[in-house]
């Protein structure tokens, strides 16, 4: 009995530590974004204070964060939608492919994960410059698709392979063409995989910095690029950068919170399958 209480207490202490470490940094940034500048660097932190919106007003009115927000939305939504569409078609293609090529192509797509982004980004920058596609949305959206579409393919393929074979046979007997089978039978059953792919692609694209930083220009800067400009400054304005950081992270945290189920199933798919 005594040992049990001791483990219980240890469990609780450990839990509190984990909780504080997971939440506190995020809390500190969010609360700093609402604090008057003088309070931001005050330690111990004040947990009760009168919130001010000055930092937000500054980044939205003087800074361009409203336009960055819009640009981030354009980039994330477009690249995710395209990735999901072409990725799930490709996965179905791989699933119905009868030759050895299916394995080779799957291996190749996964292998692309080993490629550091920088190795692609620098030559791609020069190439985009040559065809005058730097500065707009094309470069950044294409590079995000190049990362997300193979990932979607791989994720959705795993789910298609888990579907019972009888399903395909039955549909075939009913005289469905293979494309009809995909749209009528397979695609509706894929919603968990699609959910995961949507969330993880959105998350990648929304949070990505390196491609966005070099491929966009003043008019197409995304949120992460906006934040990186604060961070690069010699003396960081913590109020404004906290507000900017909050604007970047809160939407995706909320989306992830409500789609928790898909987050977990998407991330574990790799651990359970190949």
């Amino acid at each position: 009995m005594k040992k049990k209480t001791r483990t219980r207490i240890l469990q609780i202490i450990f839990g509190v530590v984990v909780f504080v470490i997971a939440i506190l940094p995020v809390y500190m940034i969010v609360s700093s974004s609402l604090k008057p500048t003088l309070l931001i660097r005050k330690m111990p932190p004040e947990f009760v204070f009168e919130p001010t919106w000055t930092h937000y007003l500054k980044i939205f009115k003087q800074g361009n964060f409203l336009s960055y927000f819009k640009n981030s939305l354009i980039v994330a939504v477009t690249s995710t939608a395209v990735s999901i569409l072409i990725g799930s078609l490709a996965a179905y293609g791989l699933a119905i492919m009868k030759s050895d090529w299916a394995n080779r192509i799957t291996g190749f797509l996964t292998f692309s994960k080993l490629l550091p982004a920088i190795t692609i980004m620098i030559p791609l920058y020069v190439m985009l410059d040559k065809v005058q596609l730097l500065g707009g949305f094309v470069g950044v959206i294409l590079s995000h698709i190049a990362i997300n579409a193979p990932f979607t393919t791989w994720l959705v393929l795993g789910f298609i392979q888990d579907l019972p074979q009888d399903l395909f046979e039955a549909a075939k007997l009913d005289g469905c063409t293979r494309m009809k089978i995909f749209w009528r039978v397979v695609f509706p059953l894929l919603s968990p995989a699609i959910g995961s792919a949507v969330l993880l692609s959105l998350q990648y694209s929304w949070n990505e910095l390196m491609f966005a930083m070099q491929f966009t220009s003043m008019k197409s800067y995304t949120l992460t690029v906006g934040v990186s400009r604060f961070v690069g400054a010699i003396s960081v304005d913590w109020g404004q950068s906290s507000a900017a950081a909050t604007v970047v992270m809160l939407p995706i945290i909320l989306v992830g919170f409500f789609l928790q189920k898909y987050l977990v199933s998407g991330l574990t798919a790799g651990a359970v399958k190949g």
Partner: protein
Amino acid sequence: MERGDFLPFLLLLPVMLVVFFVMFLPLVYGIVISLFDYHMGDLDFGRDFVGLGNYIRMMQDKVFWKSTVNTLYFTAGAIAGDLFFGTLVSVWIQSLNERIRPIIRPIVTIPLLVSPIIIGLIWKYMFNINGGMVYWILSWFGLGAEQFPGLAGSATAMLCAIIAHWWQVIPFVVIVLSSGLVSIPNDYYEAAEMDGASFIQKFFKISFPSLMPQYMVILLFNGVDAIKVFDIIYALTGGGPNNSTMSLSLYAYKNAFDHFDMGYAMAISNATMLISFLVFGIVFVRYNAKARKEGIKG
């Protein structure tokens, strides 16, 4: 089986086109340009060709070697902590009541969704010598910037970057390991308890061996992710102080966009790729072979 069955290839075409134009082509182009002394603008094939000149220069570049060591140090430190703390947290979650678990998980996974550039910013704030929370906590123990210079010290700055990376990636480890732990039958633990096994024994004899596939995935995904580290360091230190946190990706980036020394930058980024392949290619090939054996049908 069926020759001339084009539908599957047709379905694959869009993804393959994107991969070809946005990954494969730049990759080849980068290898070619790394043989030239190229600074944007027009390329003169005769005059600018330097052969392996950029690679020879790289071999003699102290900062390149420092970045290599830094990157490997970061990767090793990141993975070690990810696995160790990730395991601790997963085992803790597993030991909880099943009703509490679903409430804990979404909270613990928050850092996973935060952009790496924001992670860098958050920890720059936490490690700030003037009013950063870390220094406030250290002051309880009578420690300060002298004992732990943090981001300002060449010896400690990388450690700060590693800690920031842990904070972001451990949730991923927890999700993956928890999924593995759930699938271990309870009977195993009960049988071990009957034999009087301690908590630690149970972990090393039952949980740890069954989690091997999960550890493999984590090693592969996190390792690849860590070896190309860019955003966190970009935000946290920008590579300083005194290049002590310069990573390969960041060094290539700086050569490309601070000096527009494109040929040399591509040589470095190709070396980064080679190192990533050398370190994780083996893990990857084994993982992929195993996955194939376990029945991805052709």
